[in-house]
């Protein structure tokens, strides 16, 4: 399938989604193959004339939209091709008629009202199709129904749902012992004024745009789970699968170990407690690679959303100069003049940009899984590295403090972070050369890397607002760090960082990980998956804003707690 053809069919996805009432993909069927659907995609022959293609597409979407292909129909139809044909001949008309107000003109002309009137539901149609009542053949534009593919796709989706069960909040509460209440809370930013992850919140809307969720057959409640258009890449990527095979390379030898290493605990989800001093993290000095310096691209597009970030414009009254007259101040000044006292001169309103003090530490995943081919071309590593370069440059240009570390691991005693750029290093060609020299290899002990990143950030940044930005395919895997264990530890590490007032943003660029998997690893931290680095500007600002707001709220809460404690102590001292 050429990219041109694909682009043409892709254009129909909105239309198909509108008729089906859920997110649909459109893909090419074989030459002169009748149109069909597996419940996720509709397959049509791209060689057909546009009008014919449209009718076939709409018919298949209408079958999905009016519930004709919901269980138990596929099971029943799988038994007999003849019944399937009869069912299509009848149900096709009924489905079109049921959705008639929504259909394009061309598709409405397909409806045979006499046939449509014979059935009033999918179940009814199924009954008639299985009976001996005479029924004509379905017109060619109806394509065909493939009950087995429908069933298989339905089972696949069912399995995915089962694999990522939602943990009720109360349950999580009862199980957590060593951290305070809001750790691992399924609602991000529970301390904000309103939950931003509902369908109505900014993050919810954003996630909606980003992720196509697998659990969309109900098409019902809006929210982070809702299907979307943007995430198609994610769904397509599912075909590539997530490989558990990291490249079998050992950690590159010859790298000078800079420090003896720091130890960090790890969260054991099975036993519900920490393993103290479990992981050893060493900082490995980067090789001064002879690679050609990476040229960051897309920096300009990133700069705009980032520039607006956190520098909220505030209208300040009583300024010495400004864009508008502060009428209240002016009146007062005048009254003072009349009363004989010297008037105040600060009679203007001005829009003041509050300069942020923001530090961002980028953590780039250079484990073997990043060497996997990306569904959007190249390797995941290429995409993530390009994103890291662009982000670091854009933030640096804006005057923020930026550091860039890469991470990989080989078991718990060898978690290595490489400072490509420390906070105090200038961002120059050397940094870009080091970045270009990064090769993916070994494994991903995400939790330890996040803990170390957060520690460096708190220690070296020197700013009050901090963001830890993790660029990873969201695939946590190391020796003794598989599946749910690794995911739980990564989530835990992120909530620890947040508790210290560090905002966490996790980005997956061009990776084959689906939305549910990202959610399992990154939990309540602001996270998103995009197909290509060019899409970053769209998602980044809301994510960062949310992360900062959540961290600030945490900080305020912490300060408040401290103040209350001090006051109580003082009171008790006074009364004593």
């Amino acid at each position, binding site marked *: 399938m050429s990219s041109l053809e694909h682009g043409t069919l*892709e254009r129909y996805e909105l*239309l198909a*989604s509108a008729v089906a009432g859920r*997110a649909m993909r459109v893909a090419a069927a074989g030459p002169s193959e009748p149109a069909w659907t597996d419940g996720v995609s509709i397959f049509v022959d791209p060689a057909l004339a546009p009008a014919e293609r449209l009718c076939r597409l709409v018919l298949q979407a209408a079958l999905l939209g009016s519930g004709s292909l919901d269980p138990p129909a596929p099971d029943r139809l799988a038994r007999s091709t003849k019944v399937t044909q009869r069912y299509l001949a009848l149900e096709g008309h009924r489905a079109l008629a049921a959705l008639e107000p929504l*259909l*394009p003109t061309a598709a409405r002309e397909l409806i045979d009202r006499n046939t449509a009137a014979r059935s009033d539901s999918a179940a009814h149609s199924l009954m008639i199709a299985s009976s001996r009542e005479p029924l004509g053949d379905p017109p060619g534009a109806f394509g065909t129904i493939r009950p087995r593919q429908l069933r298989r796709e339905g089972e696949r989706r069912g399995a995915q749902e089962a694999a990522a069960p939602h943990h009720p909040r109360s349950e999580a509460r009862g199980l957590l012992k060593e951290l305070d209440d809001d750790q691992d809370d399924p609602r991000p930013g529970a301390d904000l*004024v309103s939950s931003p992850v509902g369908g*109505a919140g900014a993050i919810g809307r954003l996630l909606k745009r980003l992720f196509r969720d697998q659990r*969309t057959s109900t098409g019902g409640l809006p929210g982070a789970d809702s299907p*979307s258009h943007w995430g198609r890449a994610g769904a397509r990527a599912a075909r590539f699968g997530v490989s558990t095979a990291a490249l079998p390379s050992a950690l590159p030898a010859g790298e000078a170990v800079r420090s003896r290493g720091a130890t960090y605990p790890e969260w054991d989800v099975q036993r519900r407690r920490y393993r103290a001093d479990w992981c050893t993290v060493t900082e490995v000095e980067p090789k001064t690679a002879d690679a050609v310096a990476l040229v960051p691209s897309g920096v300009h597009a990133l700069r705009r959303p980032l520039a607006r970030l956190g520098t909220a414009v505030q209208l300040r009254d009583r300024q010495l100069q400004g864009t508008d007259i502060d009428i209240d101040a002016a009146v007062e000044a005048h009254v003072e003049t009349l009363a004989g006292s010297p008037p105040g001169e600060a009679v203007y309103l001005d829009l003041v940009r509050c300069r942020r003090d923001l530090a961002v530490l980028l953590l780039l995943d250079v484990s073997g899984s990043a060497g996997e081919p990306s569904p959007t071309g190249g390797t995941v590593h290429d995409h993530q590295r390009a994103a890291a370069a662009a982000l670091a440059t854009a933030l640096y240009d804006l005057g923020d403090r930026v550091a860039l570390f890469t991470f990989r691991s080989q078991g718990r005693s060898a978690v290595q972070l490489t400072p490509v750029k420390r906070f105090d290093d200038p961002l120059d060609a050397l940094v870009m050369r080091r970045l270009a020299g990064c090769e993916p290899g070994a494994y991903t002990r995400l939790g330890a890397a996040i803990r170390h990143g957060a520690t460096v950030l708190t220690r070296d940044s020197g700013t009050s607002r901090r963001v830890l930005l993790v660029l990873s395919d969201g695939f946590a895997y190391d020796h003794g760090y598989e599946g749910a264990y690794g995911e739980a530890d990564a989530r835990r590490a992120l909530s620890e960082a947040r508790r210290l007032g560090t905002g966490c943003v996790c980005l997956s660029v061009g990776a084959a990980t689906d939305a549910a998997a990202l959610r399992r690893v990154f939990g309540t931290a602001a996270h998103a998956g995009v197909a290509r680095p060019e899409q970053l500007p769209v998602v980044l600002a809301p994510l960062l804003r949310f992360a900062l707001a959540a961290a600030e709220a945490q900080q305020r809460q912490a300060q408040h707690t401290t103040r209350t404690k001090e006051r109580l102590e003082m009171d008790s001292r006074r009364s004593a």
Partner: protein
Amino acid sequence: MTSGVRPYYVPGGNEELVFKAAFRQHLAILLKGPTGCGKTRFIEAMAYDLGRPLVTVACHDDLTTADLVGRFLLRDGETAWVDGPLTRAVRDGAICYLDEIVEARQDTTVVLHPLTDHRRQLPIDRLGRTLDAAPGFCVVVSYNPGYQSVLKDLKDSTRQRMVAIEMDFPPVDIEEKVVAHEAGVDHETAAELVRLGQAIRRLENAGLREVASTRVLIAAGRLVSEGLALRAAARAAVAGPLTDDPIVTAGLFEMIDAYTGDDPAAPA
């Protein structure tokens, strides 16, 4: 004030009854609904029916209490008090409509509290006076729940003083009538536009942040009444404002082509 013809509004449910009942009972009204579904037009029609003047305030971040209540200005070397829109409505017994109330800061909307309970009073600190609301005064606020930023929401104490009317895009037959009337296009064109709008609204969960409102359908209709082909009008007025994303735009164009059917010769 209330002269001329009634603003065109076709009720989709019992909203007119609720509004009028609440008005007679001196209750404040909270209108919820997506942008462009007819909230403002509804209030204009109600103000006309009830024979009350309408004072509209578009709320924004920097709206201060003084902007609503009033302030001292200078006149001939002396200060003179000038009423704000809220005070004017209280004195005249007008309907005061605060559009997009959550855009205003919460400390600003607190000024509504004594006006929206049994007291119906407006205390004006700077004058040291408290105004009793004239008969016929009514506070109406509008609010778009799906649209506001993360940190903004109505205070519960504000919210609970209101009677809520939920509005949504009108049903198909009414929307056709509205589009035909407002845009001055024939029924066939209106029906095609509405069908397109209905289809786009089904995409709300599938990637579009905002869907085609009645307002954009009317805009497309108005372009048609100026002689534009339906397809070109829909592209300009419906697809363009909804998204900047090239992939989504291409998808919307494809939908528009499918729904505006039979004039393939029309300039794209």
